[in-house]
């Protein structure tokens, strides 16, 4: 296992290098010049040339890429063109809200979706199954921002139960932290609840049709034991895969939720940086996202060995 982990970790280096080259090239070739944005309406061509020189944007591609890569290797992601703050500081500021939202959404999703999927599979063909599937279709169909606005209207404006927007760090206490997490987690969790409920149902149905399940029933085991002790464990590999992919998607895909609920996370940092052509931030964030994907995938692979003893590395 250790050798496998080491091999996988080493394999991330070329992956990250390719990502770095790809990201840098993409930004280099994309339209938009931060010097023009910075210069504003009154800047002359000389002003813009001077700003480009200051930022090093007048250097050839290879020089810019080489300088950036060397700095990244030394742990320096650069300085934001607009805020003049270190990119690593900006990313660190934003990681907590994004992780908090991701974890809260995932917990909510798993707690709701897995039992729903198990129930639907157990009661396949009944109204319960149809209800769960109808919810899944709705969950997929509602865009996050629509769900978000409906929740804001219902639970914040009308019922006055929860704050509309903002983020309070967990360091201020769980009581202060949680209210701001409820609406965004519900809004964001709808799609993932639907996804995981469907996968759980499909996976459970496959397992429930196996001979050993029939054997378990014939041994006189209760339905609960058969479902949770035998079926769910064996159905869990595809569920865990989906949860893992969902986690990675959530980390990078919370842009809309962060915008609707004004949560200062990584998603919004990325979008704001793209709109302003703040290259160092875009490069830094994409590198972090890529690393997160690689790590989550590795974690999923490791989880398989605990869930299915037949899997060995």
């Amino acid at each position, binding site marked *: 296992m250790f050798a496998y982990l080491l091999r996988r970790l080493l394999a991330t280096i070329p992956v990250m290098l390719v990502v770095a080259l790809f990201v840098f090239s993409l930004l280099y070739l994309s339209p938009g010049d931060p010097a023009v944005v910075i210069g504003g309406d009154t800047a002359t061509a000389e002003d813009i040339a001077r700003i480009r020189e200051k930022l090093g944007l007048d250097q050839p591609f290879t020089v810019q890429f080489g300088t950036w890569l060397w700095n990244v290797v030394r742990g320096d992601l650069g300085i*934001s063109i607009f805020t003049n703050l270190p990119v690593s500081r900006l990313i660190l500021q934003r990681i907590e809200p994004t992780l908090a939202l991701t974890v809260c959404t995932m917990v909510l999703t798993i707690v709701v979706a897995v039992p729903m999927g198990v129930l639907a599979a157990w009661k396949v063909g009944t109204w319960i199954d149809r209800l769960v599937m109808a919810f899944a279709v709705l969950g997929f169909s509602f865009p996050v921002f629509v769900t978000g606005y409906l929740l804001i209207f219902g639970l914040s404006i009308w019922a006055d139960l929860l704050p509309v927007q903002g983020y309070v760090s967990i360091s201020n206490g769980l009581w202060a932290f949680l209210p701001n997490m409820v609406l965004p987690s519900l809004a964001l969790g709808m799609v993932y609840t639907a996804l995981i409920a469907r996968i759980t149902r499909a996976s459970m149905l496959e397992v429930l049709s196996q001979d050993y399940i029939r054997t378990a029933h014939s041994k006189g085991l209760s339905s609960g034991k058969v479902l949770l002790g035998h079926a769910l464990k064996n159905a869990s590999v595809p569920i865990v895969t989906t949860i893992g992919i969902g986690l990675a998607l959530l980390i990078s895909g919370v842009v809309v939720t962060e915008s609707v609920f004004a949560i200062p996370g990584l998603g919004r940092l990325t979008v704001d940086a793209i709109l302003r052509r703040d290259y160092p931030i875009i490069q830094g964030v994409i590198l972090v996202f890529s690393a997160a994907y690689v790590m989550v995938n590795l974690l999923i692979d490791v989880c398989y060995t605990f869930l299915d003893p037949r899997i060995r590395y």
Partner: protein
Amino acid sequence: MIDLARSMSRTVGALAFVGALVLGAPGAGAESGPKVLKFIPQADLRSLDPIWTTAYITRNHGYMVYDTLFALDANFVPQPQMVDSYTVSPDKLKYSFTLRPGQKWHDGAPVRAADCVASLKRWEKRDPQGQKLAEFTASMDAVDDKSFTITLKEPFALVLDSLAKLSSNVPFMMPERIANTDAFQQITDATGSGPFKFVKEEWVPGNKAVYVKNTDYVPRKEPPSYAAGGKIAKVDRVEWLYVPDASTASAALSAGEVDYYEQPPVDLLPVLAKNKDIVVANIDPKGSQGVLRFNFLNPPFNNVKAREALLYLVDQTDYLRAIAGDPKNWQACASMFACGTPMATDAGTEILKGKRDPAKAKALLKEAGYNGEKVVILSATDQPIVNNQVLITAELLRQVGVDVDIQANDWGTMITRRASKEPLDKGGWNIFHTWVVAPDTATPLLNNAIRANGANAWFGWPDDPAIEKLRDAWVRAPDLEVQKKIAADLQVEAYKFIPYIPTGQFILPSAYRKNLDGVIIAPVTFLWNIEKK
């Protein structure tokens, strides 16, 4: 049974107590705290340097933390602000200024004349009006800690107007150690001498900027008027909370989570106006001017006949309805110098204000040699004010047989693309739209779009020596009356040459909770004088 109930009750009580300890009781210590003004600004504060960038959000940040030597009042007259007294020599070549006593930087150091000289010198390197002042200046020297002089090469009537410039770039005063930073390098230290101090540790770009009351600030005695007069901070702390989603921002204001929403979108104004706890107010009566800008390097608009054709097509009311909705939020204004400002004039506006005449426009386009070629209009779909104007212009041109190609971009891409001087097949363009706040169009010196100095002009690069000559004459005009006369002549020439077409003047109202008092009516959002009841 009773024992069981008592036991359960104790358990619940204990759990609640432990829960309260662990989670922290809500609202604990909330009473009689500092007065906090929660404000949703028009944009996210990304840069702290109001000299380095022209972004209005950074200008507004500047007004929070810095002070100015002079400031414009509601009559557009420069009034002393940090300056206590000043004299002008009889030959109008030497201005001597004395600073108000007792002024301190946020770090406790006294404000010195040398700081002001260094600040002005840095500003002059970036701002066009500052550059004009520098052109006329022979020397600028600190005499002692409290006084400094500006000696001119020839009389320049706009010295005080320049020092009181209201909008970007504003000549804010900074400590000399900061003002000595290269003007093309961002400052990172927001130490000023203004009514609020910036709390850098709490700054989260994209989310929050925090200011606390500067208790050392000594305000002027006069009542506030635009940027002039007493700047009294009446709250202890101001939090700028950037909420990118307009619906969420409006909901936060409705729910009382924030106090002041600087620029709600026009379609949400009716909803906010219905809320009895919210005031929807026009705090910037002068508003902004919409702009239709031509590229003078590419046909057909390198020909004045083609530009004139647009004068017969543009109906400002169409543009203004699309931009600002409710008629009380806009006015047709053909003056290139914002209506309601001293230089505003009707001179030369007859065609734009006359009957719309598509047939005449079509004939003019033909005279200009237009023969069905593609006309590229740059749009920024993330900026409704830009995009709405583009759609109208495109429709007007299509009505007279022009082959219009709207090229959709985001704002960041559009402002890069408009800098291209290339022909259309290499990424060039023919028309773009934007908007400019009234103070930035108020005079021939401030209005960038009217300049016609060829390669050095604003994007589009019009070249008309007659306009430039009149602009130069305006700069040298000895008094307001002569300035007005020259501005009128300049506009007549501009409507013949047509460097751009103003698409009307509109305001973007603000919304705030009724418990706020003292909001200043001005073209810039100022947060001093506001009391939270």
